[in-house]
């Protein structure tokens, strides 16, 4: 397995850092190395927020994500800001409320992450979990079993069933 560098972007409060931690924990459950870093400061509340994850079979020395292999953008602002950091040949996952950018050197998945959370499940806070499900369907970067285990060990008690459903919705957004 190559070194995967992922950048999750959106607005502060969308659970992107938790999403990054869950993905890194799933990778560790799979026996891989994983490292998660995040931005602090004004960016962490409102505006464009981001979490970064590196997953590899090998030792991870340099701990920062530069040009990423996968970019998740849940808002227009974050997509505009970080699109240029996506490598040629990379994967862009955007909420369908974001205008699909004009880049023909990447694969683009425009899917209804936020509306599935808000309208279908009635819980905006599970958007990050839906996104993780979709990313799993696209990349298989971690096993489904580890991902579910990692999700369930991080989410608040009493929300396990909701998050299982959110994960399943995410899997099915990309087929």
């Amino acid at each position, binding site marked *: 397995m190559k070194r995967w560098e992922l950048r999750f972007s959106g607005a502060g409060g969308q659970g992107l850092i938790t999403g990054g*931690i869950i993905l*890194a*924990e799933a990778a*560790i459950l799979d026996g891989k*190395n*994983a*490292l*998660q*870093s*995040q931005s*602090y*400061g004004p960016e962490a509340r409102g505006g464009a927020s981001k979490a970064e994850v590196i997953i590899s079979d090998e030792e*991870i*020395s*340099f*701990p*920062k994500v*530069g040009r990423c292999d996968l970019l998740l953008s849940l808002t227009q602002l974050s997509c505009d800001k970080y699109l240029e950091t996506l490598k040629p040949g990379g994967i862009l996952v955007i909420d369908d409320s974001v205008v699909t950018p004009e880049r023909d050197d990447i694969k683009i998945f425009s899917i209804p992450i936020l509306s599935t959370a808000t309208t279908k499940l009635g819980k905006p806070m599970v958007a990050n979990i839906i996104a993780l499900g979709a990313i799993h369907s696209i990349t298989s970067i971690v096993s489904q079993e580890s991902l579910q285990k990692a999700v369930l060990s991080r989410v608040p008690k009493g929300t396990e069933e909701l998050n299982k459903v959110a994960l399943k919705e995410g899997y099915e957004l990309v087929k």
Partner: protein
Amino acid sequence: MTVKLMQGNEACVAGALKAGMKFYAGYPITPSTEIAELSAEELPKVGGKFIQMEDEIAGIAATLGGSLAGLKSMTATSGPGFSLKQENIGYGIITETPCVIVNVQRSGPSTGLPTSPAQGDIMQARWGTHGDHSIIVLYPSSVKEIYYTTIRAFNLAEKYRTPVILLLDEIIGHMREKIEIPENDDVEIIDRKKPTCSPSEYKAFKVQDGDVVPEMAAFGEGYRYHVTGLVHDETGFPSGNELVADKLLNRLIDKIENNKEDIVTYEEYMLDDADIAIVSFGSIARSAKSAVDSLRSQGYKVGLFRPITIWPSAEDQLEELGKKMKKIFVVELNAGQYFLEVDRIAGKHTKVNKYGKINGDIITPDEIVAVVKEDQNA
């Protein structure tokens, strides 16, 4: 075996608890705040105490008090907070009070760039408190190493009865990474040596034959003694006698400088056949390691020397490095601080260059690769 994703600051607290920390006093400041938060959460569970003081000065003062009362004590801070602690670091040195002071470095001077990383406190850690003294400063580079180095910081503090500074930086303090901790982690834990004589015979600052430091009684155990920042004799009471001053101050320096073999640790990476060495530490050593891999794949014989004990410096090893290498690059996230030490030692034998940055950005592997290649192809 526990395998989990852990944050650097979290690993520091886990290591401190493993080492036997029972008291934490401090004042929260980014990017060290998680250390205070987790200590507050975990210490009551092990019968320890956490106290948030009114500022950083009070934080280290209470930390020293906790240690004098017999508890392994720690405080953590960053940036301006580390500046505020300097006077009491000196008090800890002259009173031989073991404690661990964590400084998760951020950009300065003053409040600087509060959320940006830096390695700008290398010289402040060495010389921040006034007067002649020696000090132990450790600087790990990964989450796992933070765990074990924090344990070691407590051990060295107890063994040599001195404040030990644990340097981290925003990058390794905040990042989360995989850590494996064995279930029965039989890592060595050192406790201060207590007096066996009767309280009436106890001389608080007398070094017993065969020992490096005086035996340390805890306040409240019946051994009464005087603690002062003034030069003092073996009883602990102040003295202006030059022989007493000479003996005490040199003993405080010698107990560290004469035990470098025990204190100094470092990592060597790909140095065996190298003719170019990069010297780097903390988070930036990770960039340097990636750069070494990249330069090796392009045919350059480059290796990495990574001090884990920053002070006292690895003088013998750096001297050897100077003799073996055609060139040494000191790569650090500051304007060239450790460069001064490496150049002092290795510069007698080879050319030492510096590469640094002070704008709040990290140094990337590509930058280091470019610096080395530009120099080599010039």
